[in-house]
């Protein structure tokens, strides 16, 4: 008997190392170094605990999860526990041999990210020359093997015009799903917001393109569209509610309700090195703090939507208002909503240079 329903999914960020340097990367600004990463034995134990508590799916992510040579062992172990295994990869380390090791281990699905449909732009955004050819080859190998493939594109002002080309690319590469996901603005995305935030017109164009493609593809190719919440009236239900559906484990073993939660000050972050996953999920203050609706301030407290969006994203509230327990400023009822309007109004006509995601690059304070 458990008081709190168990999580459905585990996001296992096995490393922050990555050959790419996307300026919207969802990793924290302070990246964990390799020397602090959990060992193979730690991860195997964590997978045992996750399966026992009721996790159904494990998403192996990073950084680039294929940078860890023990990834096939982790996948094999997860499969033996009945967990559904998903690999979230940039594809640049994927070749026939490394893919075979993963499929032999029983991998269920691959989500492969592309930075753009245009090669030169993709490689400029990702900060890695030669990446596109490697990704295209990765897609071909995955398809040839027969593994289901999802393509992921993160959308922003510098690639939004090529959403039609991205959708064509997904069709051509034989993907079963494609994610057209507008950038979320925390961490690196927030640091690069002026370089990334699209105009409302750009956003609407992507919406129209996606609607038309959905009609064209029918059930052949599913499109998952994620809007940038800066242009919404209401926030998204971040992670399906704090501590309700997802567990996130950072490379060093910290257990978080979402991948950005480390930015919240004044909290102790529980780690699998010290406690069991079950104990952390049920009892750690980090998880109980914003779980449910009791913590909510007004206007959320008295709002009819509070169990739909759970008051939005805590990390976005923190980043934009300085208070993690504020209503997500994306909400048009939030006292802090002015900062969103301001960010849109102050959007420069010409995007500034990217601040690339690199070790050490996130620690400079934003001067503007």
């Amino acid at each position, binding site marked *: 008997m458990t008081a709190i329903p168990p999580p459905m*999914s585990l996001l296992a960020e096995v490393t922050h190392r990555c050959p790419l340097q996307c300026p919207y990367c969802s990793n924290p600004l302070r990246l964990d170094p390799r020397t602090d990463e959990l060992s193979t034995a730690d991860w195997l134990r964590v997978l045992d605990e996750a399966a026992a508590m009721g996790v159904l799916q494990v998403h192996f992510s990073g950084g680039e999860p294929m940078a860890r040579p023990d990834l096939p062992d982790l996948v094999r172990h997860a499969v033996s526990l009945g967990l559904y295994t998903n690999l979230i990869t940039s594809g640049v380390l994927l070749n026939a041999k490394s893919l075979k090791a993963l499929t032999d281990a029983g991998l269920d699905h691959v989500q492969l990210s592309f930075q753009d449909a245009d090669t030169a732009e993709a490689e400029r955004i990702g900060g890695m020359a030669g990446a596109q050819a490697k990704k295209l080859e990765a897609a071909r190998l995955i398809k040839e093997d027969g593994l*289901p493939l999802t393509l992921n594109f993160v959308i922003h002002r510098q690639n939004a015009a090529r959403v039609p080309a991205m959708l064509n690319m997904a069709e051509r590469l034989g993907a079963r799903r494609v994610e057209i996901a507008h950038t979320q603005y925390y961490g690196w995305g927030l640091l690069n917001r002026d370089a990334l935030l699209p105009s409302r017109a750009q956003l609407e164009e992507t919406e129209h393109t996606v609607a038309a493609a959905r009609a064209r593809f029918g059930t052949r190719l599913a499109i998952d569209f994620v809007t940038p919440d800066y242009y919404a009236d209401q926030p998204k239900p971040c992670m399906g509610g704090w501590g309700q559906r997802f567990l996130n484990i950072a490379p060093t073993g910290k257990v978080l309700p979402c991948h950005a939660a480390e930015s919240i000050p004044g909290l102790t972050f529980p780690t699998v090195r010290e406690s069991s996953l079950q104990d952390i999920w049920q009892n750690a203050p980090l998880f109980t703090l914003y779980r449910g609706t009791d913590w909510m301030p007004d206007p959320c407290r008295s709002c009819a939507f509070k169990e739909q969006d759970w008051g939005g994203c805590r990390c976005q509230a923190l980043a934009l208002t300085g208070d993690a327990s504020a209503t997500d400023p994306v909400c048009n009822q939030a006292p802090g909503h002015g900062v969103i309007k301001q960010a849109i109004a102050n959007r420069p006509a010409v995007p500034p240079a990217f601040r690339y995601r690199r070790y050490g690059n996130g620690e400079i304070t934003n001067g503007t």
Partner: protein
Amino acid sequence: MTETSEPFSEETVLRFARGTRLQYDRVREQWFIQAPERAFIADPSAAEILQLIDGKRTLGTVTDKLLQKFSATRDVLVHDVLHMTRELADKQVLQVV
């Protein structure tokens, strides 16, 4: 132009698409369909049908098997089977063999 999918018949043979499966969750005591990026609940009747999908049986045979277990008329049952499997094929969970 939305592509409309062909209805299934009693002769249709289905299997789970690669990367999808039916799984019983002992913690929640519920059947789930495991699929790329998410697991969704299979209600008890869907779970009964899906347990009989093996890449060999026709949907007619699946219906006959279910008839041994449930006290519905064959007409009702066959309608449910054809309808539910078509929906799951549209969601890329099942595919025609």
